[in-house]
């Protein structure tokens, strides 16, 4: 089900960040089983082998649906998507900009 990260939330931005991180962590853990241990916030997802190249497509599709954002082709770069911390910042930017 598609949800907007801002919908139904009344806390501060820290709560929102926590929510994005928790949901993204859960998705990565469920979808990429090698990440059964804790994934560091600054750990490279592609470089460490946690996700593979096709996994990036899976991740992007999930981000679009889960957070109701649009990811452009030029957004698919490591600066936006290669670590949990970057993903959170990217989703926050996209959501704040109304995607």
């Amino acid at each position, binding site marked *: 089900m598609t949800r907007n990260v801002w919908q139904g939330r009344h806390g501060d931005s820290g709560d929102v960040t926590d929510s994005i991180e928790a949901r993204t962590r859960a998705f990565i853990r469920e979808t990429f089983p*090698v990440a*059964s*241990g804790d994934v560091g916030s600054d750990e490279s997802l*592609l470089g*460490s082998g*946690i996700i*593979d190249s096709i996994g990036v*497509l899976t991740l992007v599709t999930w981000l679009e649906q889960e957070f109701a954002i649009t990811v452009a082709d030029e957004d698919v770069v490591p600066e936006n998507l290669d670590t949990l911390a970057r993903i959170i910042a990217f989703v926050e930017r996209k959501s704040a900009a109304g995607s």
Partner: protein
Amino acid sequence: MSHFDFPACRDSPLQDAPHLAAALGIGSLALKRDDLLPFAGGGTKCRKLAGLVERLAQTPADTLLLSGGATSNQVRIIAAVASQTMRACEVVLNAGPDSAAADFARLFGAVVHALPGADAWALNAAIRSRLKALSAEGRAPLVVPAASAADLPCYDEAIAEIVRADADVIVVAAGSGATSAGFLLGLDRHLAHCRLLAVSVDRPAAELRTVITRLLASSGIAADGTDMPRIMQRLDVEDRFIGAGYGVPSAASHRAVELAARSEGVLLEPVYTGKALAALASIAAEGGIARNARVIFWHTGGVPYLASSLAQLRS
């Protein structure tokens, strides 16, 4: 129903290689000739075609979409499968339009998108862009990954073909990691004492180990359970023979190609199998292979790409 019998892509010959064994100082050496598997120039990747075609028959996919490098066996073979099953194919390459993989892909009727030097992210963005464009045109594209847990059973089953040889060591070139991961599953079931030497052709050993672990985890082996350490402990990874990088021949791999040709009349190529044999030769010379060890060198194919390297061998 396909008119080509894709399940025939198995049971390749196991060929004794006494002259090569003597040259390397190994007591017993056999070559598992997956290069002779009967489709699109052969290669171990052919083993996954039966499962892929079966899965394709259950989808509406009319276009296969994949990425690869300048000498990708996957690109050549999947482009051929698309042709044989009457589907379109688009290939995104991190190599030039005149690369060998591009030539073979076009030969099989695929559309080639050449992005020389593109990294994994750029390839992903290009694949995603083509996915959206094809879908917008009303097509039904299907992305074929280089390595998938769905492919592991065919490589697992391949080990059953060599059980009677009772090998102590299997040597194989490793790129995507899928063949190695499947072989480890097969060894766990059939050859408890046999080790796997995976010779990386494109990434550091630690990264290849992680990729293999991820594939095993995706196949249902719990990453934090007891099976994973048992399966992984029989894996040795060698990454000293990558040379200048993926798809780039090295002096050592050229020597290995010549050695196989001149000792056994067998064709290798210098970016996968040549590097794997160069690694075996070096490790044997260092005393890393017991004199009485029974070694199987798994010929993963790629011979169609040898032609483009012959001029370099001549010089």
